[in-house]
């Protein structure tokens, strides 16, 4: 039904991102196969950076194509006369994209981890000590930022009735917030927390939860706007 349609609309991008998530680490490791030390020296940093890039790009791309496209495609009259609430359509498309994002992140994480474990162990007997270079906090922050960016872009795309407009607005808004934060810091020494930074003295996990709640509020706002939209 609608889940199937969402999957059908996004599966092309999803498969591409899955490939992008899965391939870089094995390929890099394979290229350095005869330079054993280099794998463990550069590997953890490469793993971290690849993860940040892949999940961020996937978040923006999936949000852009997952958001309710019915207004752009002029098919709102068809979908919104089906016996389901508009909220159902908003949240279902959000969940499908979010699931795909989680899968992309998981694949990247597992493959990267597996490659480091496999080649690292082969290259050095003290391999496990090098894992200290991989910071779990960086991964948590990257994942939290991806979720936040995904929800914000999705919400704006649904509200502005266009995936590309939503993407532009989301990037603009986040850049604007960074600018405002920098200005506040310079002018009045006020520290405005930016996603996915720690909020004040809250523990990291709680801060990330707070960012997630804010992200879900964006989707809720999108639902309210779509429910009230005149077609």
């Amino acid at each position, binding site marked *: 039904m609608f889940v199937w349609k969402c999957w059908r609309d996004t599966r092309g991008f999803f498969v591409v991102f899955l490939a992008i998530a899965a391939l870089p680490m094995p390929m890099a490791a394979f290229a350095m196969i005869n330079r054993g030390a280099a794998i463990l020296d550069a590997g953890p940093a490469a793993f971290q950076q690849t993860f940040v890039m892949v999940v961020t790009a996937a978040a923006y791309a999936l949000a852009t194509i997952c958001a309710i496209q019915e207004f752009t495609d002029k098919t709102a009259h068809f979908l919104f006369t089906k*016996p389901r609430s508009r909220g159902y359509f908003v949240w279902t498309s959000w969940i499908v994209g979010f699931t795909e994002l989680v899968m992309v992140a998981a694949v990247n994480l597992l493959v990267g981890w597996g490659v480091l474990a496999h080649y690292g162990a082969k290259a050095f007997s003290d391999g496990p000590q090098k894992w200290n270079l991989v910071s779990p906090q960086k991964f948590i922050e990257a994942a939290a930022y991806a979720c936040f960016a995904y929800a914000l872009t999705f919400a704006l795309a649904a509200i502005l009735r266009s995936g590309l407009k939503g993407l532009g607005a989301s990037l603009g808004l986040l850049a604007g917030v960074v600018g405002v934060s920098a200005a506040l810091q310079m002018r009045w020494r006020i520290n405005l927390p930016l996603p996915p930074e720690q909020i004040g003295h809250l523990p990291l996990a709680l801060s990330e939860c707070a960012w997630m709640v804010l992200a879900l509020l964006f989707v809720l706002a999108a639902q309210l706007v779509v429910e009230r939209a005149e077609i």
Partner: protein
Amino acid sequence: MMEAVISTDHLTKTYRQVSAVRELNLNVPRGAIYGFLGRNGAGKTTTIKMLLGLTRPTSGSARVLGMDTARDRIAIFQRTAFVSEKKTLYPLLTPNELVRFSRGFYPTWDEKAVEKYSQLLEIPMTQRFEKLSNGNQTKVFLLLALAQGADLLILDEPTTALDPLTADEFLRVLAASAMERGCTVFFSSHQLEEVERIAEYVGVMDRGKLMLESRLDDIKSEFRLVIAVGNSLPRQTSSQVLSVVADGDCCRYFVTQDADGFAAKLTQNGATVTQVVSLGLRDIFLQLVRKELPCSSGNAGATLVGSSSSF
């Protein structure tokens, strides 16, 4: 009138300064094929959107299948099939995939109807929607609507942009299906011939107002053009006389009821009634929306230049 499947109570929609629908009181009887006539911009699509809850009314209310359109939208959609004037669907899906997509929404979905109508309408079920001709795209909409097993079919200008043959086929299938299943069909159009062909009830809308609503046979049997010659003929309109066109000693009266009685009254007053002409839906429609005046011979389509008093 029988039990109403669609009824509106002073339904009004205003866009800023523009009044799209004004104080509309519509009644569509159960089991009827109702032709909703009006020229472009008359307010037909806005009315349909309000009936489906796609647009909120500025004031007034509407009930569909006995349910409030503002409150019971989802329950209404379960029993109502809609074909929009915009014949756009997911371009990359095939009709088979569109069937797969739609069927999960409706417990009353009829798979046999899909088979029957896809064959009857000769729809290429495995071709992408974007690759289908206009006619076939419209047929896909009809197929989805009919397979839904709905009690009410609402179609907004379904045959626009269809060639006469396809339009004919479309209407034939629509009328036969409605008769077979006993569902109510409410369709808007400005194609008078097609309304005349299949509709039992007609509503004529112009500039946001409902000008006329009645059984088509009643309209045809009541509305007459009375042509009279004489001195001092009455030139006023009334509830019985919709318009008067004067040309010297000759007057053409567009009479909405009891034309024979009206002609007799004119004769009593010394006038000579030369013709009492029955009118087709086209003449009636044009009179109501006042874009064309009735011709002296009663031929549809001829335009008479003359003065007309307004009612």
